[in-house]
């Protein structure tokens, strides 16, 4: 059944989009991520313009992270103080991201920047995750227990001033890296249409030593608020959020996430990370392929004005 998307301005098969929502939702539930970095490319591959895809996916991520955030809230696995500090800078980052998005679009380089950023970000993060996953897998083969990556020693981050105590996470860190991370995630999220969970979680663990008990819940709150803000800002400035597309994706996404979470709970954490790494890396390579291989048509058209 075809349905016409009013903003993307093209008809799509409603079941195809629903299936995409279900699949990405399944994956996001399984790995505890928003899934934006998979959804945005997938929408681009089915013919939706990168600009509309990025803008619409933000609302899809808002829906799926809200579901997650509620369940983490009930389990008291959210460090609200930390989330608020991240958000203070995150909102600024989002606004800067939406601004850059508008500028890049005006000078015809948005698609290129989206493509390049995906390649760099995804292949890098993917490779790191694969490396770590393989090592964990090898350790498990040798019968050694998985080491907890949380050494007690302090790194340079802990030497910075302006320290604050976060009770729920049981950490005492400087606000400078907290704001830095918040800004970067908000910024990347708005430009690339990704929630940034797959970047935020490792950053919180490695730089701030946030314990595993609160890291995913806190990351979800952060993603939820930045993506909700990005939806509103993209709609207000670029008028590119396709609510019909977003609605279908959300419905598929939240259903898929339930089944994904169920499957994820039955798998070992190290193996999950390896699989996620492979997935992230593959998406990155797909973008690299598009940038390097000569396009079918060197010319392309973009609407400037509706008159």
């Amino acid at each position, binding site marked *: 059944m075809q349905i016409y998307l009013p903003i993307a301005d093209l*008809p799509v098969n409603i079941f195809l989009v629903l299936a995409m929502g279900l699949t990405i939702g399944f994956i996001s539930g399984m790995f505890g991520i928003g899934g934006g970095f998979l959804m945005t490319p997938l929408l681009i591959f089915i013919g939706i313009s990168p600009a509309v895809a990025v803008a619409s996916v933000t609302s899809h991520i808002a829906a799926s992270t809200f579901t997650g955030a509620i369940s983490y809230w009930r389990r008291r696995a959210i460090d609200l103080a930390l989330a608020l500090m991240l958000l203070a800078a995150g909102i600024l980052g989002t606004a800067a991201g939406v601004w850059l998005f508008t500028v890049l679009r005006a000078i015809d380089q948005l698609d290129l920047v989206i493509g390049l950023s995906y390649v760099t970000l995804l292949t890098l993060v993917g490779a790191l995750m694969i490396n770590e996953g393989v090592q964990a897998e090898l350790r498990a083969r040798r019968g050694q227990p998985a080491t907890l990556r949380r050494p007690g020693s302090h790194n340079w981050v802990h030497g910075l001033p302006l320290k604050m105590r976060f009770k729920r996470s049981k950490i005492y860190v400087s606000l400078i890296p907290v704001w830095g991370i918040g800004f970067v995630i908000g910024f990347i999220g708005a430009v690339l249409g990704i929630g940034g969970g797959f970047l935020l979680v490792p950053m919180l663990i490695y730089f701030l030593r946030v314990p595993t008990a609160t890291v995913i819940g806190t990351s979800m709150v952060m993603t939820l608020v930045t993506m909700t803000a990005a939806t509103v800002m993209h709609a207000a400035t670029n*008028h590119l959020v396709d609510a019909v597309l977003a609605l279908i994706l959300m419905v598929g996404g*939240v259903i898929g996430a339930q089944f994904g979470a169920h499957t994820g709970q039955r798998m070992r954490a190290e193996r999950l990370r390896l699989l996620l790494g492979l997935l992230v890396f593959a998406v990155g390579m797909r973008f690299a392929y598009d940038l390097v291989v000569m396009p079918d048509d060197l010319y392309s058209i973009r609407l400037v004005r509706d008159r």
Partner: protein
Amino acid sequence: MRQPGATLALTIAMIAGATASARAERLVVSLSNHRVAVTSNFVGTEIVLFGTVEPDSPRTALRGGYDIVTTVSGPTVTLRTRRKERVLGIWVNVDSREFIRVPSYLGVLSNRPIQQIADVTTARNLQLGLNHIILTQRIGTDFADTVTDDPFRLNFINLQKEAEQYRDVSNGVTFLTPTVFRVSIPLPANVPTGTYTVDVKLFSGGQMIARTNTALEVIKSGFEQYVFEASQNHGLIYGLVTATMALMIGWFATVVFKRD
């Protein structure tokens, strides 16, 4: 309208007929549908235009051997065509041209190829076919159309053809009798909304002898229209509503699937 028109034509025919033999035709056309509604399940449609060639007055003779060229133009838009080049191994947009106020949809339908209907000069003067239509470009500070084999122009037309927005259909007009014809106007699924002008030109012996026009309207209807207008005119409210919808669905999922 018919009566005064006929009287006027008769007068002209009488004046002209005094010296030359009266040979004047007029076109009477009618569209099957003046309004196309783009709904959620719209997959494109076809509008049919029926027309007949009539003598201006009962006594005038028809010369026969008619050709019809119908040009359907959608609302104008400004589009930018960009060209990619390889820079440091990757493909980057390096150059662009803006096409100012060009038709968003352009269908040229005729009963046989344009070059067989009229010579190049006539075709150019009357903007017959995609090769001769004027497409204004911004070149630096100038606004002008370029030669027909300009690469930007050619690629612009090709891309628009691929997107099914521009088309040359040399068998789009069918003569049912020597004077009655039918034109099928294809409108693709992604047809732009707005007012379309339908310009019908009648040719005989390589010269245009009559011309008429009509219009049709493509509108997004119902829900799609509402959503589209809201997104363009009330961006902030639209964004807030979309964000609220996202949160509602997210919350609804936790209610439906109580896992905790």
